[in-house]
């Protein structure tokens, strides 16, 4: 037998390559028909669980399928970051809501990356950032 299947190693390798190649970056300059597939962005509650994956992985599978069918597919991701849960958690843990939220974003980004989805991270949107909410 040639070699055993070693998912952590393989998955990390390809994720890094896809990202450095911008394999899933999309732009309007394409002769393919556009296709916008959107999954509801998660609240920055801290940790993704497999329930989040259940929303995101199949959505990514479909987006990938459409990509293979010749569409110019945008399948973006971001974070819903304002609101009471952040404020209440921050009060309870005695840290600033901004820090609490951005720490969570950091962790959830890492987790979301492991899904191996075609998210174009250059398009990430976070609602509590001034460059976003100035337009709200």
């Amino acid at each position, binding site marked *: *037998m*040639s070699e055993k*299947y070693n*998912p*952590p190693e393989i998955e990390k390798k*390809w*994720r890094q390559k*896809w990202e450095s190649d911008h*394999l*899933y970056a999309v732009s*309007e300059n394409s002769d393919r028909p556009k*296709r*916008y*597939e*959107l999954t*509801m*962005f998660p609240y920055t*509650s*801290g*940790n993704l*669980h*497999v*329930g989040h*994956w*259940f*929303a995101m*992985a*199949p959505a*990514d*599978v*479909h987006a*990938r*399928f459409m990509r*293979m069918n*010749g569409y110019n597919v*945008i399948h973006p991701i*971001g974070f*819903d970051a*304002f609101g*009471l849960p*952040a*404020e209440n958690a*921050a*009060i309870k843990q005695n840290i*600033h*809501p901004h820090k609490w939220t951005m720490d969570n974003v950091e962790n959830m980004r890492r987790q979301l990356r*492991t*899904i*191996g989805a075609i998210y174009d991270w250059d*398009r*990430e*949107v976070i*609602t*509590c950032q*001034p*460059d*976003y*909410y*100035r*337009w709200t």
Partner: protein
Amino acid sequence: MAYRANAPANWCPKCQTVLANEQVTGEGVCERCDTPVIRKDMEQWFFRITKYADELMQHDGLDWPERVKIMQRNWVGRSEGAEISFDISEYGFDEKEIRVFTTRPDTTFGVTFMVLAPEHPLVKKLTTPECREKVEEYVDWCRRQSEIERLSTEKEKTGVFIGAYATNRLNGDRVPIWITDYVLFSYGTGAVMAVPGHDQRDFEMAAKFGMDIRVVIAPEEYNGEEFTEAYEEPGTMTNSAQFDGMPSEKGKKAITEWMGKEGFGKGAISYRLRDWLISRQRYWGAPIPMVYCDKCGIVPVLEKDLPVLLPEDAEFKPTGESPLKYHEAFVNTTCPQCGGPARRETDTLDTFMCSNWYFLRYASPKYEDGPFDPEKIKYWLPVDLYTGGVEHAVMHLFYARFFTKALRDIGLLNFDEPFLKLFNQGTIILNQQKMSKSRGNVVDPDDLVAEYGADAVRAYLMFIGPWEQGGEWNDNGLVGLSRWINRIWNLILEKKSGTASIAPETEKELRHHTHKTIKKVHNDLDALQFNTMLAALMEFTNLLGKVKEANDVKGNAAWQEAIEALLLMLAPTAPHLTEELWERIGYTYSIHNQSFPVWEEALAAADEITLVVQVNGKVREKLAVPASIGEEEAKQLAQSQEKIKTHLDNHEIVKIIYVPGKLVNIVVK
């Protein structure tokens, strides 16, 4: 679109904060400190979402789940009926009438009293001196009730007579005016005509306080007996002057037309939907960009000065008032109009404001000259497929549609609907409960990814059940999927295989299954049916395993076609694994830039069966036919065979028995 108004809110005097209806318990106390909650009028910002009520009820051309459309329509709560005027001119006030909305104008002759909301401004004016004390006491008591409690149909009816009367213009009756908590000032006109014969709440009220119960809609075969409960169904109009004998459904229209002519009322539409209150007295939200100037009044912050930054150094612990109020550097500013000293709005925006247009920002996330680049919006929007939980059916999906329509009307968007197709996935269950952080039954994906790989977790989640239903999480299920993925790894990379050279029939079968599977997987993916898609791929891998075990597959074109198709079909589900295998068997990077495989219909459909042809029960011929063959076709085919013909010559055919997929037996004599 945005306006400022006074609105009653649930107020906890101890926490000094506004509470949502859901934060007030059934006993009318604050869920945090058990203090009785009162209703307090507060100046707040609103969005005029009601302007779009009718449009938001329409979902034309949208591929959405029916239940979401129904929930949104119910949320708007459009009802048709009539607005009817009751005369109070006898008191000599400026107000000569009380207007009510009703969906049952056909029952107007059955009005025996009127009810006003305790907050109705006419209550103070109309209350007679002898009733004053009781009325004031009751109004105070109502203020302490939450809206949920007030609207509860379960509880005992309460109310007081205010001493005044209104005249029903239809029949000249002077009916007493009461106040009761189940009429809310913020709904409709804040006044209700009470028809105890045909409205259960009014019936209970009348039964308790001794008002008349008048039958004006007769049920079928009604003999004039007293009602023991309100009759709310259609019937025949009675005690209704010239309308007597008319079916009540028809009467609705007739009575409305007549009232219109007489000037007593007119047809009207009422909505349950209320304007969207967007002010929040909390810290963690986007500041409302408004400034209060003593000279100029309320002035919006200039676009060039946006965003109004949320100061990080504010004391954010809830004190009841907006935390920003005590941040002097934030509050004190200059008026954008006159440059004089001014104060900032210190409430923040409802978080839904930020989360209901994010899908527009993705098109140009770094655009600095506006919320989005119009050219890019034109290219990417609207969203073709939106997936998410059904819990967002009303709030999020409703507000996002409202934003889209409002932005369209100021010329920023050129489409009417943001999400063309909506799909609600189901939920993952663990220990009989929806998986959630608050229930403490979450499964952390990090460890699973480290042990089994993301591809196995992805595949397992899609195999757990239909996507719209979800299913119960089970570690053994994941182990099973992980084994399957390992089998694919070995199937493709293992050099060892059988020794027989592939027979033409095997090759044919292989190609048939390859194309059949491509067709099935394509159609399932298209329809978001991931679990059956994976089942087809598993069946296909089993077949490939058997073929490889028996045969030397090396260099065989049908085998190569099958392997290539398998990887491409699996690429969306297991992107890492397939990329690795794709490279290892010598294809060029990346598999994710390949096209999805295409099936040949003839090969996909070529499922053949052996059809046995008998004459009088004796086997005379065996035919290879498509599995999809129909009865007539099979019978014709059997009779046209040369070998069969010889047995039929000079015989009369009595009957032909057909067993689908198996045989044709021709009975002759």
